[in-house]
C-alpha cells in the first residue's frame, strides 16, 4: 500500500492509502460508479440476468459484449431503471450508483436519469430544431434564461464534436442531418443535462464507417469527463475503444477484465470461442 495526500469532501487534506495494481506500477484505484451485487432480473418467468456482480469504474469506457439475447441491453437498461417500463420485470439484488441502491424504495428515478444518460442504437432526435433538441433537457430542469441555454447548447454540441458542422443551422430540423450527425446530436442532448454516466446501446450499429469512427473518437474524448458503458456487437469496436470488457452469456457475466486481456488471453474458453467467432 502507498500513502497519499488527498482532499476530502470538506476540502481538507488527509492521508489515505491506495493499493498497488500491476507489476511494480503504482495505480490509484478509481472510484466505482456502478456496483452490481448479486443482481437478478426476470421478464415474467424468464431469468434474464443471473447474479450479476460488476464494478464499473469512473472515467473508463466499459464495453459489454455477448450474443443476442444474453442480457447485455437488459443490463444497461437496468442501470437507469428503464427496464421498469416493462411491466412484467422483477428484480432482486443490488445495483448501487455511487454507493446507493437505485432499486431502493427511496431512490427517485428522475434523479437517477439526470445522472445517467442514454444513447440508443438508432439515432432518435426529436422532430425539432437542432437547438431545441439540445435545450430540451435543460428546459425541463427549469432553465429558461436564453443566454444560459445558448451556452449549454454550444458546450454540448462542442462536447459531441458536432458544433462546427451545425453552428450555422441551429434552427434547422435535426431530421435533416445525416445518421451519424443525428447520433452525435443525441449524444449532445445527453451531455446537455451534464450526466455522470453515459449508457450507449449499440450506438454505431446504424452508422456508416466514417460516422462510426467519429462516434468512437468522441467516446475516447468523453471518458475524461464521463464514465461510459457501451453495448456493442462489434468486437473490433470493443477492442478499439474500451478499457474494460464484460462478456455476457445466457444472462451471466462469464468474464470481466481489462480489454487487452479479454482480446489477447481470455481466461474462459467460452469468451475465447465468442470473440473468435466460434459461436454467437
Amino acid at each position, binding site marked *: 500500500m502507498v500513502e497519499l495526500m488527498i482532499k476530502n469532501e470538506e476540502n481538507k487534506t488527509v492521508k489515505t492509502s491506495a493499493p498497488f495494481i500491476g507489476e511494480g506500477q503504482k495505480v490509484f484505484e478509481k472510484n466505482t460508479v456502478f456496483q452490481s451485487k448479486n443482481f437478478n432480473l426476470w421478464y415474467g418467468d424468464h431469468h434474464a440476468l443471473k447474479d450479476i456482480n460488476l464494478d464499473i469504474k469512473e472515467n473508463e469506457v466499459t464495453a459489454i459484449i455477448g450474443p443476442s439475447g444474453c442480457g447485455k441491453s437488459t443490463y444497461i437498461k437496468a442501470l437507469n431503471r428503464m427496464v421498469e417500463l416493462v411491466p412484467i420485470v422483477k428484480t432482486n439484488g443490488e445495483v448501487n450508483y455511487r454507493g446507493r441502491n437505485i432499486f431502493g424504495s427511496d431512490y427517485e428515478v428522475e434523479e437517477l436519469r439526470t445522472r445517467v444518460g442514454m444513447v440508443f442504437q438508432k439515432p432518435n432526435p426529436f422532430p425539432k430544431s437542432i437547438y431545441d433538441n439540445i435545450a430540451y433537457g435543460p428546459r425541463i430542469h427549469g432553465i429558461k434564461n436564453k443566454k444560459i441555454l445558448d451556452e449549454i447548447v454550444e458546450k454540448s454540441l462542442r462536447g459531441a464534436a458536432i458544433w462546427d458542422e451545425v453552428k450555422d443551422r441551429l434552427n434547422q430540423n435535426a431530421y435533416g442531418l445525416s445518421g451519424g450527425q443525428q447520433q452525435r446530436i443525441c449524444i449532445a442532448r445527453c451531455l446537455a443535462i451534464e450526466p455522470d454516466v453515459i449508457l450507449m446501446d449499440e450506438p454505431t450499429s446504424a452508422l456508416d464507417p466514417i460516422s462510426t469512427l467519429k462516434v468512437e473518437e468522441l467516446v475516447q474524448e468523453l471518458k475524461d469527463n464521463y464514465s461510459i458503458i457501451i453495448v456493442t456487437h462489434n*468486437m*473490433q469496436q470493443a*477492442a478499439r475503444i474500451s478499457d474494460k470488457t464484460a462478456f455476457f452469456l445466457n444472462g451471466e457475466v462469464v468474464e470481466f477484465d481489462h480489454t487487452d486481456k479479454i*482480446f*489477447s*488471453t*481470455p481466461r474462459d474458453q467460452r469468451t*475465447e470461442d465468442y*470473440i*473468435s*467467432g*466460434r459461436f454467437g
Partner: protein
Amino acid sequence: MSVRERYENEINAVQQKLLQLCNRSIETLEASFTALINKDLEKAQEIIDRDVEINKLEEAINDQVIKLLTRQQPVATDLRRLIVLLKAASDMERVGDYAVNIAKECLHIGKERFITSIELLEDMCFKTTMMLRQIVEAFIEENTTKAKEVAELDDQIDEMYGSMIKHLMRLSAVAPESVAQITNLSFICRYVERCADHATNIAEYLLYLKKGQRFELNN
C-alpha cells in the same frame, strides 16, 4: 461451409505450407553438411541456386497470413497462431539461408583436404538437424513439453561450438598457412550453432501460442 470452418481450413493450409518450408530448409541444411563432408561442390552450387524456392515458400506464407489478418481480424489464440506461423516461417527461412552460407563455404574450401578432424562439427550438424526435426514435430503437435526438451539440447550445441572454435583458434596459431580454411570452418560452426538457436526460438513461439506469455528458453 461456415465462415469459421473456412477460416480454420485456411489456417490449416498455412500450417501445411509452413511444414513444407520446414522440411525443405532442414533437407537443404542436411544436404549442405553432406556437400561439406563429401566435398561435393556440384551439390553445394545446387543448394545456392535453389534457395529461391525456400524464399518463395516464406513469401507465400507471409501473403496468406496477411490475407487472413486483413479479412478475419482474428483475436486471442487465433491471432497468436498467425503471428507464430509468421515468425516460425521467418526462422525456418533463415535456416535455409544458413544452409546456403555453408554451401558457399564448401565452395571456398573446394577439394582441399581438411586440416583437422571435423568429427565434432559432424556431430554438431547431426544434433542440430535432429533438434530442428523434433521442434517441427512438437510445433505441429503443439506439444510444449517436447518443445522445452528440444530447447534444452541447445546447451549441448553451444558447448560443442565453444570447443570447436577453441580448437580452430589454437590451430590457427600453429598452422597460419591454413587460416583461410580455419576461417571457413569457423563460419560453418557459427551457422550450425545459429540454426540450433532458431529451433529454440520456435520452441518459445509454441509456448507463446499455448500460454499467451513470452518465455526465454536457453538464452
